[in-house]
């Protein structure tokens, strides 16, 4: 009789409870996974949660090695991404990242907490990139002659097939002068006046360089797309 009771209890109470907790456990686990992915994705895409903790900044100012390493770990991938499209090749990009971070560590006590810390770091990296590019033959590639107006629109279907790596490869085909002006105007959002001050060139020089850069990029993207479409077509034909 007692055993029957136990069995009944097992069926009516224990089992469902266990089932319920199991379900709850699964939901919580799934929830945590989703939350984590969201955080990672958000961090990667918009950098919202890449806010650098205050204590890292303070630690760096004191020269605490762990803080410096933590800062690098947090910020270097994005900064390397910047270097990659300013530099002409991967080695130069590494050099810019290295020299830029040296400057960051040296100047960190100058940062007064006003404005975004990462923005400040980004500015230093870009200045380092400009400094390196200036070592190359700078004045020869600047061209002040008037530029004919051309369309600078990229078709939607081309856009879909372009990856960041493709764009970096294309942008590296520009001369250092065009590349730098384009980066500063189109990606960083500086005005021609500001670009002129940063690079030591005139506003009109900056404008003409930008136009040329856009034209070259436009042509290169189109040919890249045509080549890709051709390959795809050939691939389809040979596949069947």
């Amino acid at each position, binding site marked *: 009789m007692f055993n029957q009771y136990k069995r009944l209890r097992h069926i009516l109470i224990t089992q469902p409870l266990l089932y319920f907790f199991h379900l709850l456990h699964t939901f919580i686990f799934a929830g945590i996974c989703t939350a984590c992915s969201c955080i990672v994705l958000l961090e*990667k*895409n*918009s*950098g919202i949660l890449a806010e650098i903790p205050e204590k890292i900044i303070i630690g760096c100012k004191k*020269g605490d*090695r762990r803080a410096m*390493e933590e800062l*690098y770990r947090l910020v*270097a*991938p*994005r*900064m*390397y*991404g*910047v*270097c*990659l*499209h300013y530099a002409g090749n*991967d080695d130069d990009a*590494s050099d810019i*990242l*290295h020299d830029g*971070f*040296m400057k960051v*560590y*040296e*100047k960190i*006590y*100058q940062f007064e907490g006003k404005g975004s810390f990462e923005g400040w770091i980004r500015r230093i990296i870009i200045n380092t990139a400009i400094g390196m590019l*200036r070592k190359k033959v700078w004045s020869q590639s600047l061209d002040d002659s008037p530029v004919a107006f051309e369309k*600078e*629109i*990229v*078709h*939607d279907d081309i*856009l879909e097939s*372009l*990856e*960041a790596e493709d*764009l*970096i490869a294309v*942008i590296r085909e520009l001369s250092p002068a065009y590349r730098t002006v*384009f980066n500063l*105007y*189109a*990606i960083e959002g500086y005005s021609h006046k500001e670009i002129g001050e940063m690079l*030591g060139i005139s506003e009109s020089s900056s404008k003409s360089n930008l136009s040329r850069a*856009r034209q070259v*990029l*436009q042509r290169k*993207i189109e040919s890249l797309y045509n080549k890709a479409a051709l390959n795809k077509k050939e691939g389809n034909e040979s596949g069947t």
Partner: protein
Amino acid sequence: MNRNKHIDDVFREKLKDYSKDPPAEVWDSLSGRAGKKRYVRMYSNVWKVAAGVAMLMMVGLGWHFISNRAGKPEHHLKGYAEIDNTEKDISDYEAVADGVREAYNRDKVISGEENKIAVFPGANNITEKSSGTGKITEKSSEAGETSVSYAQYDIIVASALPASGLELPGHETGVSDHLLTSLLFNQELPPSARRDVIDVKDYSSEVPGTDLFRDMYVFDDTPQSDVRRWYLTGMAAPEYSYRTVNNGDMANAGFFDNSENPLFTWSGGFQAGFQAAKRLQIQSGLFFSRSGIQIDRLSTFGRVDPEKYFQESTGLTGNAIVNVGNSIGTIKSDHSNVVYMSYNSSGVDERSVEYGSSINSPLDQTNTVTGLDAGLVQLLNFIELPLNLRYRLNEGKFKVNLLGGISSNVLVGNKVFYLSQGEKTGTGKTENIRSVNYSGSVGVSIDYEVSDHFMLVVEPRYKYYLNSINEDKLLNARPYLLGIFTGLRYRF
């Protein structure tokens, strides 16, 4: 849906937040794990070179201790810059020190990768910045500190205005004038110091921090800075090779001058040098040195032309016995039917006895002496280990040096060629040569400095063997060589 995008937007959207993991080497280098300096390695597999270099180092160290007087400061200030404004924040002197280094680097007036810069902004702190480490250390001058050794720095940047609050011992008023005077007086500037003012105005728009400068002085100290430096030179030369011959136990040594002629050969190798004193350098090295002789007088006592034996040896009988009027060694033929009779061959070779008896036979008219329209070339290869001293006569881009020294020469190979109708055939070797010989050389070296590290070198030299290279005492033969060496010298 035909949404077209502006190209700027295309790039911005994909690249603005593009991120990629950087290579590990970047962090390694930042964290100081990777080594910064690249070292040039001297490959030396030969133990002789190691012995030579070890000897060189011992002698060099000896010179170092002799030439270094006790108490003389070894480090001298290289440069000095004046800054205008003392009102700046200490953090701005970061830029000042950076600017100083860059300005000096641009003019390439101060060499060396690690330059220690000290900035005296006019406050109580001394800001030290070492280039290459990226660190700033702040030191306060202790009260009661009686002297500061400025010579520990490479470059000093000091305020040009009278300092307020800066109390360097012994200097109450304007820092810069007193500082400079003090440096001169305390011998913290090199003895040959002269002021070269670099115009810093050119840099002000490009190099941050240089707009703060007023003057920059460079203290030129090239001669002193050469001391204790190492040099490596690669050189080669065409050489005129001949010999002097004296009577040993032989009667007519003059005979050989008629039958022999000089030869053009070549030498080449490496020299390692150590600047032991201001004008004196000690050198060793490893050279391949080739000397040679051409023998033009050949005559044969057999009926057979030796050349026939070089081409084909069937159907020929009898030996080709060639009398060679050579003064160096005994020429030994490769070919069993060809015999060379050198100055010392009589009684040595069994076949010479055979010839000797037949030539004297009046009945045998077939054995006659015929001159051969041919010659022999004797080449001797030596590995030379020199030990030279080099004394510099002047300063400037073209430096003239006198050099002299002795070498040991080790015989490593030799060859004899038969020359006939423009054709050269290997025919044997020279024997009875001493394996180790000593020579002396004198010369003049003209170095042209093309950069901080590289020099073009032209070095005419006369090398004379101090001992006879013949093993026997019958004849005294000492080769000599005249050559003009050219090469490239690297200064470490």
